[in-house]
């Protein structure tokens, strides 16, 4: 653990500045004492001092020790959740009976949903308020083959050109398709350190929930809201309810973050999280890498939640340190101090709680046309007649017709045409390492038409190549591609043909998602890798060459 005291001392003598609010912030007593803060302005309780100040954030707070309020004016903060702390810190305007105006720290945009927002802005004669807080990337429609060739799809080309023009005109930083940092927006935000704990982050893409893995409040927005953020750097929001999703115990061998989140969605259904922000907790979540936490948060939206979050901890800080957009040296130490104030207070209340035992979890495979239609790999395709709710029964019947599956078929007996390892859910280095380990020295089944590995970013691609993972995949018969959204959404030429069936590490198995008439089964990277080798699903728990064995 980094030493708090080293970083605070030098700033104590800074002069106070006028402040306008008396929100308090909690500090560990020991740290406060070391910098001489144990005085009239402090309220002490349970080893925490609360200082009434006008700044909500730690480093700035230390600079204004001279404005400490007398003890009686100090406002004690009630115990709060991670979500509530971030929300409170971003309130610009709050009026009864109205949605709250909250400030947005980071705005990510891509070519697919932003052109109309820039056009609207221009038509209204408005400017981008804080261009340096918006970051753009080309990801949805980019080719994963040769980027040096001209873009033949005129509509896609038009969007790329529009994004380039809009960024140039407004001063927004663009990672274009030839940037060495290009990649899927939800991969590059964290990877470059643009995403940080405690921030509010939005993007015109529902999988923005990914960034919540860092203890940020991150959610997808529509194009009108993109325009709103560009113009005002704010959004009008209604506060969500909070749901604690606790995964107790250690994950069994072969069970990954993807399987946890599919199990969660399988239990609550794809609308189960409507109106909520999820916070994932418990030993199994604490034990996940940042990559695994991102996979879980990414699919929060598939359970209907507005966002998913994980409280920042040492794993988070280690991931952040040294990334391009993260402060360095002493500033980094300061920001870690702030991040440490973010986790949910012990006495804080959630609106609801869901609990899972990690030991009960297993590798999951979807059988239907939404992510909630999912079961364990050792199970069978369910019989629609087994659903008690007539609405579920009809949905399952329709899904099985679309998927061309018969009730009672063993999941392991489902044959595949293509395998896709990629997407903002599962295309990070850890995912590729795990998949490569499964396929090393083996070869994809002759019955497959294609097995595709699409790294989430060019940084991931370069790191994987430095480890020789590309060679492992290619030797095993996989295609090794350039970075982008690819077959998760099929906006480029990586698509399923009608009637084809895929094992995919992506996030949505909706009808036609990967190509009209295509049939998608969602799985983890190791499950996809093993399925590619065998040509059908297999229970990865029976294989030895798998990471994550405890």
């Amino acid at each position, binding site marked *: 653990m980094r030493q708090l005291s080293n970083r605070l001392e030098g700033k104590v003598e800074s002069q106070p500045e006028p402040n306008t609010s008396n929100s308090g912030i909690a500090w560990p007593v020991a740290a406060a004492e070391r910098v001489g803060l144990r005085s009239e302005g402090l309220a002490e309780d349970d080893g925490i001092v609360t200082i009434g100040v006008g700044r909500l*954030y730690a480093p*700035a707070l230390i600079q204004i020790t001279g404005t400490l309020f007398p003890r009686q004016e100090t406002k004690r903060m009630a115990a709060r959740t991670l979500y509530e702390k971030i929300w409170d810190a971003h309130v610009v305007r709050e009026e009864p009976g109205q949605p709250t105006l909250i400030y947005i720290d980071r705005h990510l945009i891509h070519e697919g949903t932003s052109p109309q927002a820039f056009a609207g802005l221009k038509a209204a004669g408005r400017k981008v308020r804080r261009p340096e807080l918006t970051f753009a990337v080309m990801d949805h429609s980019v080719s994963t083959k040769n980027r040096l060739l001209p873009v033949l799809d005129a509509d896609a080309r038009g969007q790329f050109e529009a994004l380039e023009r809009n960024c140039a005109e407004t001063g927004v930083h663009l990672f274009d398709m030839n940037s060495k940092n290009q990649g899927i927006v939800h991969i590059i935000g964290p990877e470059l350190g643009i995403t940080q704990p405690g921030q509010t982050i939005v993007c015109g893409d529902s999988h923005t929930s990914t960034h919540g893995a860092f203890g940020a409040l991150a959610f997808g927005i529509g194009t009108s809201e993109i325009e709103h953020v560009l113009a005002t750097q704010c959004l009008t929001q209604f506060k969500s309810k909070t749901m604690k999703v606790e995964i107790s115990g250690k994950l069994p061998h072969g069970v990954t973050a993807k399987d946890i989140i599919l199990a969660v969605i399988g239990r609550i259904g794809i609308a189960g999280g409507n109106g909520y922000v999820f916070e994932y907790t418990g030993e199994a979540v604490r034990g996940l890498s940042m990559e695994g936490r991102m996979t879980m948060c990414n699919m929060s939206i598939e359970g209907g939640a507005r966002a998913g979050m994980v409280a920042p901890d040492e794993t988070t800080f280690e991931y952040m340190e040294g990334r391009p957009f993260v402060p360095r040296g002493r500033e980094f130490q300061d920001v870690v101090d702030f991040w440490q104030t973010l986790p949910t207070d012990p006495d804080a209340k959630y609106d609801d709680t869901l609990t899972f035992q990690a030991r009960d979890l297993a590798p999951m495979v979807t059988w239907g046309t939404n992510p909630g239609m999912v079961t364990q790999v050792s199970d069978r395709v369910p019989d629609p007649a087994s659903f008690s709710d007539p609405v579920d029964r009809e949905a399952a019947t329709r899904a099985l017709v679309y998927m061309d599956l018969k009730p009672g078929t063993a999941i392991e007996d489902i044959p595949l045409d293509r395998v896709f390892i990629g997407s903002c859910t599962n295309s990070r280095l850890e995912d590729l390492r795990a998949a490569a380990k499964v396929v090393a020295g083996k070869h994809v089944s002759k019955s497959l038409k294609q097995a595709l590995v699409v790294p989430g970013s060019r940084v991931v691609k370069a790191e994987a190549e430095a480890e020789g993972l590309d060679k492992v995949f290619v030797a095993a018969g996989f295609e090794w591609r350039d970075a982008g959204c690819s077959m998760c959404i099929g906006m480029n030429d990586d698509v399923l043909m009608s009637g084809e069936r895929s094992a995919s590490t992506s996030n949505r198995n909706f*009808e036609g998602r990967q190509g009209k008439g295509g049939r998608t089964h969602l799985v983890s990277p190791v499950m996809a890798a093993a399925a590619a080798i065998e040509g059908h699903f297999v229970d990865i728990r029976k294989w030895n060459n798998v990471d994550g064995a405890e």
Partner: protein
Amino acid sequence: MEPFIKHTGLVAPLDRVNVDTDQMVPKQFLKFQTRQGYGRVLFYDWRYLPGEKPNPEFVLNAPRYKGASVILARANFGCGSSREHAPWAILDYGFHAILAPSYADIFYNNCFKNGILPVTLSNEQIDELFARTEKKEGYRVTVDLEKQVVTDDDGLRYAFEVDPFRRDCLLKGLDDIGLTLVHEARISAFEAANLKHPAMYEAVDVKHHSDSPQSARHN
């Protein structure tokens, strides 16, 4: 945005739960740069057979629902992708109101930004509306946002709830951004009070970052 005050129109029933926005506007139509013209592609994969021939089995292609302007739908309508192309397509097709027991979060939000009223009713009320729509060809309802009530010619009268702020914006056709910019002083004050935090509101320094826009295009 066009205000929504009161609308009377033919009801088209879409009897499926969890209709996702991928179905409303499939991926291949997300490459355009306008907000108009998506009505033609609404529910594309369900609506058309190869060669863009209308699929007679899809409900919107039934002659009795031609000219419908109110969608009657099931739970969790509009789940999945955040694409605002979905409400753009719904509006461009000619729908002004939606009646359903529940909506996905982002889609619900997006409707209000486009002058579409998504009305939330109970499952029983929705069942009753499906029954009436099926029974009576040319079944029409009136959706009155001012009075917050759905009515028909046969005496049906369902009150509904809607957030007062959203209601007001829709009734007046207010420009959201304009509303926020009224509070420009508050935004500036917030920024001034928080600018110094190194991780939060300070402009990111891209100079120490090796991928400047200039170098990026030529590497």
